[in-house]
């Protein structure tokens, strides 16, 4: 099971890869209001999520996401949608 499939796993990834100690509710805070967030982290996060899931993530969706949980959800579901041909 990959980390991004659960919020707990995703929080652990954020802690290990980005050094961010966050609580579950922070996942739903808008990225523009999340003090510890910097768009610079996207690069590392995308790489980490792809290594974790073994699937290609649609980067554009991640860039458009409003909060961390949306990022997680897109990263988690992209493979299924890809399989279903929903480009």
């Amino acid at each position, binding site marked *: 099971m990959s980390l991004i499939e659960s919020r707990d796993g995703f929080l652990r990834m954020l802690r*290990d*890869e*980005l*050094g*961010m100690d966050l609580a579950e509710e922070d996942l739903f805070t808008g990225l523009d209001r999340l003090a510890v967030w910097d768009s*610079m982290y*996207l*690069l*590392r996060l*995308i*790489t980490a999520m792809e290594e974790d899931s073994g699937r290609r993530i649609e*980067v*554009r969706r991640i*860039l458009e996401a409003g909060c961390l949980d949306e990022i997680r959800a897109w990263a988690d579901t992209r493979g299924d949608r890809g399989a279903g041909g929903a480009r």
Partner: protein
Amino acid sequence: MGAQPLERLRSLRASGRLESDYPRVAPLLAELFDGPDGPAERFSALFRAGRVLSAIDTDRVLLHHPDTPVVSVAVTGHGTVAHLLDPLTTELARHGMLARVQFSDHGAYLRDLTDPHSAFRTCGAELALCVLDAEILFDQLPLPWGIKDLEAVTTSTLHQLSALADRYSEDTPATLVLNTVPLLRHHTQQLIDRRGRALLGAVLRDFNAGLLRLAARSPSVEVLDLDPLIAEGGPACDARLARYLKAAYTDPLLAGYAREVGHLARSLRGMAKKCLVLDLDNTLWDGVLGDQGPEGIAAAGTYRGEAFGEFQRTVKQLASQGVLLAVSSKNDRAPVLEVLREHPDMVLREADFVRVNASRDTKDGNIRQIADDLDCGVECLVFADDSAAERALVRHRLPQIAVVPLDEEPALHVTRLLQDGWFDTRLPTEEDGRRPDRYRVEEVRREALEETGSPEEHARELEVKVWMRPPDTLELARLSQLTLRTDQLNLAGARLRLPDITALADDPRHLLLSIRSADRFGENGMVGALFLRPDQGQMHIDNILLSCRVAGRGIERACLSALLEYSRAAGLRSVTATYRVTSKNRQVRELFPELGFREVRDDDNGVHYRHDLDVIPPVPEHLRIDSRFEGLVRQ
């Protein structure tokens, strides 16, 4: 093995002790990078550590540890550069340094290099990184494009960068760091004819070769070659991250780039290492000498043996450029010497080592003794051993030493040894190539003199001769190295890079004198320097340096006496000097009073001395000095 030190690093941060415990960070990182992990794990560990470290409060570290070296870095580039922060912070922390990094907006490199008021030019950084990628060329091409277009663009861009680099180094004291631009498949495959594709490769490599030659032309420009980093670290670019985030390079490549920058900063600070200390069993040869005897070990003729042979050849290549070699082994000395003298497989022989320490002592004691014998600190040494336990012990007891993690796979020994540029210098110098010989002669001297009595008798026995002369252009590189490497006899503690020395030599207000010496065993080469500034009837000594290689022979006293004599004969009123205390130059303090200088003031700038040229101590009897001051003071 990787998780544990990272956890300790995180707990330092969580408890707010990252700053107060900063000296613990470098050893933790050394531990983090030790071990069997492959490149991918290493990059991952580097980035994770970088996330912990980049939040560090530099000022608070300096409050607790004011001597921590701070490297100020300005970063600009064609793409986004901000994600260099983590790897840069970590790589500098590995060397015990702190980073102050200032980033420009993405794509701002041309403005940053041209505008004299850009923060990149005016922020006073010592390292100015300008991260280039091939899009600086391809962005300029028309659509459609052909080889001629690319040729025109590469020619004009190289010309432009070269002019900008020249102007940059005239205007600022920073070292400007450029890089070669990798050729990617999405460039080459845009041409479908193979001849055109081959030409494209040639044109782009000509551009990169031109960039690399800029470094040879200007002393304050460095050009990092990204090709070897890409060959090691995998893909250079992710098309999606390049498109959407303007990230020209992948994280692993940037990690390699930051590692090079760390070593560059280290070498500019004169912190390059001098001596490689090697274990023997399963490090230099396959097998355990004590168990298997000389017949049972190999460095040729078998799969594993060949790998050890290659390692020995690499070590010999480093030694030929001035890296000193020493052995630290728990084997008995006699069989070790027998192998080094007689074993047919050995590339490295007894004469290649300045010290062979083979004894039952612990490795840290053994290594400390090597440092003492070489008259240098443990921080000048690099230690390579295949045993994780020995490495851990040495790291723990001698945290200043650099440790190369070898393991049971000898085919990786060369990679591991060369992974870090511990011995990097800007230029080869004539002295470097001959350094190991000098130290070996030093051992003969030491042994010869141990039989005689007092220090004066030692010096008399040596028949020391000293020459003081204005340096010629070729000697300036060596002079710069002396300021970077000499700690103990360094009056002002100043460290001058080659451009600084060249500027001083060209400045008519300053006078430089190189000090060379010889004794009955041979020449010592350039061993010191005097930095002088005559001003209104006075001579001010900005600095005097003397290599610890020739310490205890009275050379510094002879040179200063000769200077005092000359100053009096030239009709000067006095000779002055200012001594700035550093952590290592305390022995200079007694030198001036002993020569008849009076302390006139002690303030924030240091201790000020003056000699009124009344009673001048004679040049010590046991040495002869030949000084050329003619024309030094313009009357």
